[in-house]
């Protein structure tokens, strides 16, 4: 495609060249093909996505909606509006760009339906709501392009399922629609092209890979050749990290969980001799607090910001020149994305510093650096689309107008995540959406979907459509309580600092102190959904919530094993790590490339078994449950277990003489079913599918159950369904989620197979070096102030014993 003069002269006026990938995107559009662009940060990715739209509108001006842009973040849509509107204004193009998110006023939304802009920037949730309107068909019929930014943020999630169902709908309304995906770092563009394409047909998608970008400079922090034995968030290095921050213009300090963000922020503040302006940003902070930090950042008022994944996505944070990763990065793609936040100029190297928390994490950091340098990213685990999401979509379609089930089935199957959905499952979803899907037929007169003469299904009432719009979306927040500062009676009077999950709040008592928003807070009282706090002193008493950690990826785990076995790499490692590996090799052995090393040893009156599975924290957690269950049955009196990304350690009164039978992979399904059914995992998963699937009402922001608590809790529904309708669609959906997300069954099964094929059992004379990080975490969570010194002594004894080579 020729660039219209008005655009090429805009480039020329800035002394810019149109880049090859930008031309390739124009070319794909001219050929009428879908396109997937992967480009490093700073490569002009956003402009490349919009350029064909601008070119088309410059050449063929027309009214009506031309391009939809879909972003995972509301804030991003606002940001891109800025970056898009400026070029449009400078080119003097008559193109109207508007945003539509949950925050858009109703009046503007209504106007957008009547007089749509040329380009509409929106989120998947707002798009779905738009499509549920009867007027949507008329508005969308002329849409030519849909641009999905940061596709990697969507692909393997329920939001992705939801989005692809909406695209299938859009494609039906506007058959010549071109789909465009923009992505920073993906391992396998081909499979993403399949995800993006109608009917999962990747041949319809032009894959454009932007070349160039300097290799990132990744550094691993080691001080005096020392790496700690235990811990996993790099807090030991706060002082050194603060010095690096001082020498940078603007640093982002990434941590793996919200709770660690709080701790690290406090540590850094304690070392902040120059009182540099540093901030904290995570998803639990109140939106106002978050926006304040973001604004300070954009205005260049900050020197560093401690952040979780809420900052991961592609916001341009201005002049960031150093990214610091506290703790292991857990995946190469993750590391690369985070490193990409530093320095948005393509030809300059991004700088990243990894601060490993312990020796395993040092190896993991090294492995991640190797992987990034080798260009080996983590593949994404695509999975079949979720049925609760489909149930929501079906009702949304009915809200837009009556449909023929046959036609909707074909449409749904054209969305890649649902390509394999059987007619039987689809009909079950329709049945669920209509009457709740119960074997006990009781709700004929309350059906939500009614069959019209001629066979089309329609929604029973307009009220149901409104109700659907209030409750749609696939993001389900955990039940949260507000953290309110000050003595006001409710959140309206005090200052709301943010939210914590209800079950964390459940541990708190009046007088307890905990870390939040970078401060130690003391609980002064509870009031409905509010926790009232004041400033606390000293160390917080209640340990912070450590959930939400991402497990180390499979590829990275393989690289860590490789590093242990590749002695040529050892000399470049810190002395601490070298010695740790060498003594392990002498007193026990090193884990092989693909075996499962199991060590047993006695310590005090207990017998320990440590399993080096390298299968990630969730899989090891489930392994611990499974193995201790089996030990129980074998009469070995297991007492407990701990899990990390690398290993699972359990202890018992009787020794494990032969670990092999404990790893028998055959009875897995059955045992897990029993355990999962009784565990809170499934209940939590059920709550999510019950909300997404439209069985229970979403708690609206600002509304909290009043004192009477008469609402029906998802736990009660779960119990009733399990008793009476064990095959219910939502139980199946919850089961699928719990298996995949919470317990990582696939990796556990692979681990058991691996153990079955190659288990090496070492009977060690005493605790081994590799076992120390695991043993150090035992009982951590229950430690009070007075026990600290006892623990310290215990740690010292453990290490001395492990490093004994006689």
């Amino acid at each position, binding site marked *: 495609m020729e660039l219209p003069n008005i655009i090429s002269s805009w480039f020329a006026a800035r002394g810019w060249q149109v880049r090859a990938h930008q031309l390739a995107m124009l070319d794909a559009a001219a050929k009428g093909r879908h396109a997937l662009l992967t480009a490093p940060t700073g490569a002009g990715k956003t402009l490349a996505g919009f350029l064909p739209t601008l070119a088309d509108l410059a050449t063929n001006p027309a009214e009506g909606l031309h391009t939809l842009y879909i972003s995972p973040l509301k804030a991003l849509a606002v940001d891109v509006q800025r970056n898009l509107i400026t070029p449009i204004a400078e080119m003097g193009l008559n193109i109207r760009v508007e945003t539509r998110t949950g925050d858009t006023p109703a009046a503007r939304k209504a106007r957008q339906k009547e007089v749509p802009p040329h380009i509409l920037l929106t989120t998947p949730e707002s798009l779905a709501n738009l499509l549920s309107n009867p007027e949507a068909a008329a508005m969308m019929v002329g849409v030519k392009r849909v641009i999905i930014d940061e596709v990697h943020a969507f692909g393997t999630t329920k939001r992705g399922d939801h989005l692809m169902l909406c695209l299938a709908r859009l494609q039906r309304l506007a058959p010549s629609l071109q789909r465009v995906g923009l992505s920073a770092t993906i391992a396998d563009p081909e499979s993403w092209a399949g995800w993006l394409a109608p009917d999962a047909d990747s041949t319809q998608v032009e894959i454009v890979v932007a070349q160039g970008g300097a290799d990132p400079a990744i550094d691993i922090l080691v001080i005096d050749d020392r790496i700690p034995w235990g811990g996993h968030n790099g807090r030991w290095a706060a002082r050194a990290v603060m010095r690096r921050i001082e020498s940078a213009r603007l640093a982002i300090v990434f941590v793996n969980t919200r709770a660690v963000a709080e701790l690290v922020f406090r540590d850094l503040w304690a070392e902040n001799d120059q009182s540099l302006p540093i901030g904290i940003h995570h998803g639990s902070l109140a939106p106002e607090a978050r926006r304040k930090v973001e604004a300070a950042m954009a205005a260049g008022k900050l020197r560093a910001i401690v952040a979780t994944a809420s900052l991961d996505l592609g916001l341009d944070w201005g002049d960031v020149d150093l990214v610091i990763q506290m703790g292991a990065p857990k995946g190469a793609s993750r590391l690369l994305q985070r490193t990409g936040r530093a320095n948005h100029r393509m030809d300059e190297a991004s700088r990243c510093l990894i601060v490993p928390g312990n020796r395993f994490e040092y190896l993991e950091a090294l492995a991640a650096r190797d992987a990034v340098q080798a260009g080996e990213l983590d593949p994404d685990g695509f999975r079949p689309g979720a049925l609760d999401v489909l149930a929501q979509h079906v009702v949304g379609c009915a809200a837009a107008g009556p449909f023929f089930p046959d036609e909707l089935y074909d449409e749904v199957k054209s969305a890649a995540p649902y390509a394999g959905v059987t007619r039987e499952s689809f009909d079950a979803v329709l049945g669920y959406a209509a009457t709740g899907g119960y074997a006990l037929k009781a709700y004929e007169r*309350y059906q939500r979907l009614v069959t019209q003469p001629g066979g089309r299904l329609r929604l029973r009432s307009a009220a149901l459509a409104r109700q659907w719009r209030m409750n749609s979306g696939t993001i389900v927040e955990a039940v949260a309580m507000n953290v309110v500062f000050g003595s006001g009676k409710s959140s309206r009077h005090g200052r709301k600092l943010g939210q914590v999950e209800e079950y964390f709040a459940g*541990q708190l008592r009046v007088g307890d102190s905990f870390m939040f928003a970078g401060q130690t807070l003391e609980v002064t009282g509870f009031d409905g959904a509010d926790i009232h706090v004041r400033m606390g002193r000293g160390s917080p008493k209640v340990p912070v919530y450590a959930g939400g950690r991402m497990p180390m990826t499979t590829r990275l785990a393989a690289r860590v094993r490789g590093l242990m076995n590749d002695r040529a790499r050892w000399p470049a490692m810190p002395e601490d790590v070298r010695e740790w590996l060498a003594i392990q090799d002498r007193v026990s052995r090193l884990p092989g490339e693909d075996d499962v090393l199991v060590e047993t040893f006695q310590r005090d009156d207990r017998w320990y078994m440590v399993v080096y599975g390298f299968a990630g924290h969730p899989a090891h957690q489930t392994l611990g449950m499974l193995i201790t269950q089996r030990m129980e049955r074998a009469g070995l009196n297991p007492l407990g277990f701990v899990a990390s990304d690398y290993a699972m350690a359990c202890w018992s009164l009787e020794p494990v003489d032969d670990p092999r039978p404990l790893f028998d992979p055959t009875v897995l399904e059955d045992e897990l079913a029993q355990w999962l059914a009784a565990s809170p995992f499934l209940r939590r998963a059920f709550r999510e599918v019950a909300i997404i699937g439209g069985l*229970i009402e979403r708690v609206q922001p600002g509304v909290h159950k009043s*004192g*009477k608590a008469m609402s029906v809790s998802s736990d*009660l529904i779960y119990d009733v369904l399990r*008793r*009476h*309708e064990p095959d219910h669609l939502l139980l199946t959906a919850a089961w699928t989620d719990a298996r995949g997300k919470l317990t990582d069954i696939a990796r556990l099964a692979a681990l058991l197979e691996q153990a079955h094929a190659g288990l090496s059992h070492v009977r060690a004379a005493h605790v081994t070096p590799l076992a120390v990080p695991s043993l150090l975490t035992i009982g951590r969570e*229950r430690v009070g102030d007075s026990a600290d010194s006892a623990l310290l002594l215990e740690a010292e004894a453990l290490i001395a014993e492990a490093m004994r080579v006689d």
Partner: protein
Amino acid sequence: MSVSFSFAGESLQPLACGALWWPGESTLFVADLHFEKASHYAAKGWLLPPHATADTVANLIAAVESTGAQRLVCLGDSFHDEAGPERLSDEARRALMTMTRSLDWWWITGNHDEDAAAVLGGRVMVEGRIGPLVLRHEADPADPTPELSGHFHPKLVIRHRGRHIARRCFAHSPTKLILPAYGAFTGGLDIADPALQAALAGPVTALVVDGERLLRFPVG
């Protein structure tokens, strides 16, 4: 059979199902059945599992059979809303009408259901009295007469070693006994909640039936 405790000089037995058995008067008390709660929501588009009413009726029948009760007192909110009786399934309606005929059946009116249950037979009243005990739906903190009531759905919430345990309980003070909700689909209110504390007018104990045992937890 569960353990007795003494209230206003009478020997009462809290049952694991949530009912209260008074052997001396051969009377069974239940509170907050909330029949047809699920269909109330279903009419609004929330298609909750339709089994709760049948479950609750089955539990009632079992409790009557195991105690041999002659009289049954429902302490209000027997239906989730006034139109509830119309939505009963034929089976549930038949079972309830059989019981109201064969027992001395009292419906105390609640704030959800008024006198809706009258169509099923039995006596309907705003307050009742048996021996020294006054029976009403919602506790009256100003009345010093020993009283049985419902309304609050008390539950005991315990946080122990980071675990969150919640169980239906009887809320007990020197002159008041509040029954847990009997309905299969009813949530609960923490017994430590100020609203419950105010209603109980005195030192509060939570009584939890655990198998054969009656556990007592002082509250506050």
